[in-house]
């Protein structure tokens, strides 16, 4: 009997040890990796390349610096994701779907839970939305789009191969005199956001994810040369100064928030703007450590496609989003948002150029509650908003300030400062977005 008793104790001890060993194996720790691919321009002169961001039908005349795809792999030991920052004006959900399809085998092999593609919104890149070709023509260059899709996918794979264990820290830095709002009320988020991954292995590079809320148009509207604009230069400066690998993503840039003209010469203006933004990142303190716990909630949602111009682009096959018509005759466009929780920090990936008023709140009854307030209701005090993520549906405005030209809605501006309405899907988007955010928080 005694023999059996000791044997039982031995088995119990072995089991406990086994359990402890398993616990050690599933210990959560951050792993991150970085990948970069430069997007070469196609050389076929028969297929013109149009510059995106300002006026239609302007062909590219040269190159200042080529566009790139930069990817971050991040996992906490059990949940993983890839964030790809592409230097371009925007990517609609059709292109994002093509990138995800390109990475479907990668996701199956690595167990990657989420692929997210963010555009830096450079106004000096090749037209990736198709809006800037000649009138009534698709401005996209298919050869370049294929380069971009393959480049984004390759960057993600390189990031996965580069991964190593380490810690993740988050910090915000206030900036001064680096933004302008083109319409009243003057509201913008002047903070510079930084996530920094510090690898355990001293031979590996650190990785920084920088976010700032301003249009990437330091080269201004006269430019016809390809460039990553100031986001690319910020990445280069930080990489040179720190040795870190750097990604840049835009924040809540709707409004329209842009950087001031600091120099008359556009290239000098770009360099000075980038240096000032990079200086703020370099001055940032270490920040607080984020617990290695990641969760992801992706919500697809519909919003009314009221903009007749966007309907027309869908008709031409330029707009890649799924669209359906309801019984009531209105068109509904499908888009998505993703909530990523990194410890107690919430990254909210939004599908367009959201007005900062919607993040901080307007206090008006006709507007939805502030995204920050909604997050706080669910215990999330720190919210980092990333715009132009996984889609580009244009500006997302507070309904209280949404005014259309009566004679030519969406084609001409209403009296006053109402340019952004002409490049938005419609007045209901803000409400639909906040509802989707609540849904994501409930899923989390």
């Amino acid at each position, binding site marked *: 009997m005694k023999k059996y008793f000791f044997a039982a104790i031995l088995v119990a001890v072995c089991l406990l040890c086994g359990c402890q060993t398993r616990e050690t194996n599933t210990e959560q720790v951050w792993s991150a990796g970085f990948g970069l691919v430069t997007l070469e321009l196609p050389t076929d002169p028969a297929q013109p390349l149009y510059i995106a961001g300002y006026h239609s039908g302007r062909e590219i005349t040269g190159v200042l610096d080529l566009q790139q795809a930069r990817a971050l792999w991040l996992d906490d030991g059990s949940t993983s994701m890839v964030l790809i920052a592409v230097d371009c004006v925007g990517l609609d959900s059709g292109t994002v779907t093509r990138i995800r399809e390109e990475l479907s085998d990668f996701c199956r092999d690595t167990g990657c839970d989420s692929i997210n593609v963010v555009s830096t919104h450079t106004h000096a890149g090749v037209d990736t939305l198709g809006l800037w070709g000649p009138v009534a023509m698709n401005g996209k260059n298919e050869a370049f789009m294929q380069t971009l899709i393959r480049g984004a996918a390759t960057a993600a794979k390189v990031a996965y191969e580069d991964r190593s264990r380490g810690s993740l820290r988050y910090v915000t830095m206030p900036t001064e005199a680096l933004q302008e709002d083109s319409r009243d009320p003057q509201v913008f988020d002047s903070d510079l956001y930084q996530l920094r991954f510090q690898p355990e292995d001293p031979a590996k590079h650190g990785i920084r994810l920088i976010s700032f809320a301003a249009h990437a148009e330091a080269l201004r509207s006269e430019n016809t040369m390809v460039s990553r604009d100031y986001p690319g230069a910020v990445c280069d400066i930080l990489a040179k100064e720190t040795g870190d690998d750097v990604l840049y993503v835009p924040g809540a840039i709707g409004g329209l928030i842009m950087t001031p003209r600091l120099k008359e010469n556009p290239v000098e203006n770009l360099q000075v703007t980038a240096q000032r933004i990079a200086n703020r990142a370099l001055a940032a303190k270490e920040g607080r450590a984020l617990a290695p716990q990641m969760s992801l909630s992706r919500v697809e949602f519909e919003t009314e496609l009221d903009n007749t111009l966007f309907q027309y682009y869908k008709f031409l096959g330029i707009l890649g989003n799924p669209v359906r*018509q309801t019984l009531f005759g209105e068109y509904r466009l499908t888009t998505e948002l993703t909530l990523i929780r990194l410890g107690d920090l919430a990254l909210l990936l939004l599908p367009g150029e959201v007005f900062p008023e919607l993040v901080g709140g307007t206090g008006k009854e006709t507007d939805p509650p502030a995204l920050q307030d909604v997050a706080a209701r669910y215990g999330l005090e720190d919210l980092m908003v990333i715009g132009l993520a996984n889609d580009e549906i244009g500006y997302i405005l507070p309904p209280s300030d949404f005014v259309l030209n009566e004679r030519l809605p969406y084609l001409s501006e209403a009296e006053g400062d109402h340019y952004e309405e002409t490049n938005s899907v419609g007045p209901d988007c803000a409400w639909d977005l906040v509802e989707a955010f609540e849904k994501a928080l409930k899923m989390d």
Partner: protein
Amino acid sequence: MRRFFSKNWIAALVSASVMTLTAAVMARLLLRHISLFLSFDHQFRAIFAQIHDGVLNSPVVLMMAIAFPAAWGLRKLGKCKHWRIPAGILWVLLWLLLLISALLLTRVNGIRFADVLVSLLDVLQKGGFDGL
């Protein structure tokens, strides 16, 4: 005229065509507004949407429901002595109208041509897209 009106069945055909057209338009309006007022649930709305898109919005069904009875009626009307030329003109106009309707109701990438025609003209007038 006397001969035409004595043929009650021709008059009935023409009336039936007009009534079909009116009924189609009315049904569409009713479907929209009743659904709006009663706030049908999504599944019910989806069924109605299918009826709406599949039947009332389909150029082919529209042609079959309206064009053929109307054309037949006009053809019969054309056999009457004094109505031959006006009926012929009406017959051609009807088909032109139906072809234009079919074109306007045609969907490309899920968008009806009628909904973007004005935008297209405005874009052409404006000379392109601006901004973002």
